[in-house]
């Protein structure tokens, strides 16, 4: 059975695209954190823990919210939904923040709430908690977005019937640079509902690369 991308979200350069529609753009925002906060408020998401997350988790959480707002995970058992994410700098952004709290021995106050995010796969945990997902998950690291690697991993999960749906993509944040793409991949079932105005894409390397570079 073929798989299709039924919904996706792209966040970078002060703009947010969901299923080919530009839903957010502000020219004058210079801080990445402000972009995330503005999108969170615009979309009227109510999840106080959002504010406590690190940058990667906020980014992945927001992109997933927007993907699933358009195409909910309906009819899936929690154990059959997977999450496969990737980036290049792992959790370095938070590792640096943690290091700031411990580098001065005379003022050594490591922050527990920072420390708990010093692993890249914590973003997957946040997404799974929010959406009650309990399937296969992995966080892959590569120098740059690697559509082939991402496709291969997710394709394998579908081929071996480990998942019936899978969120996959790229969630990169370091300093004020950020870039995220999350796509929902599902088996191509007849009569499957899709977001209004969005033509689902066949799940393949070309289309993953297309979404990543889409402006």
């Amino acid at each position: 059975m073929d798989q299709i991308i039924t919904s996706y979200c792209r966040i970078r350069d002060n703009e947010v695209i969901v299923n080919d529609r530009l839903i957010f753009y502000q020219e004058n925002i210079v801080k990445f954190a402000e972009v995330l906060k503005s999108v969170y408020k615009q979309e009227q998401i109510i999840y106080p823990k959002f504010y406590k997350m690190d940058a990667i988790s906020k980014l992945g959480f927001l992109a997933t919210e927007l993907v699933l707002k358009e195409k909910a995970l309906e009819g899936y058992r929690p154990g059959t939904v997977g999450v496969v994410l990737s980036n290049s700098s792992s959790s370095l952004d938070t590792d640096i923040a943690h290091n700031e709290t411990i580098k001065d021995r005379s003022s050594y106050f490591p922050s527990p709430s920072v420390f708990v995010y010093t692993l890249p796969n914590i973003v997957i945990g946040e997404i799974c908690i929010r959406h009650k997902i309990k399937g296969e998950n992995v966080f892959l690291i590569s120098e740059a977005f690697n559509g082939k690697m991402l496709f291969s991993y997710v394709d394998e999960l579908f081929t071996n019937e480990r998942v019936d749906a899978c969120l996959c993509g790229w969630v990169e944040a370091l300093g004020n640079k950020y870039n995220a793409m999350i796509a929902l991949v599902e088996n191509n079932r007849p009569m499957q509902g899709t977001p209004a105005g969005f033509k689902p894409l066949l799940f393949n390397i070309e289309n993953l690369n297309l979404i990543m570079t889409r402006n």
Partner: protein
Amino acid sequence: MEELIEKLKKEVIEQLNLEDINPDDINPDSPLFGEGLGLDSIDALELIVLLEKNYGIKIEDPKDGKKIFHSIRTMAEYITEHKK
């Protein structure tokens, strides 16, 4: 004491990233955990760090935490008694 309570409210909001909460929203006698602000176990650890970092108070026995961090007022009372 009231001055310290107001200061603590601001510090707790900042330390715990309670973005949508203003100092006036916090009743100094309401429980910090379970209900009220709905704090979790990581927040509890952050409060321990806050006491040490801002007031030089180290909690030696973790069991005392439940009593100390019951509310903003109990925190303020503990700080008043133990501040170096």
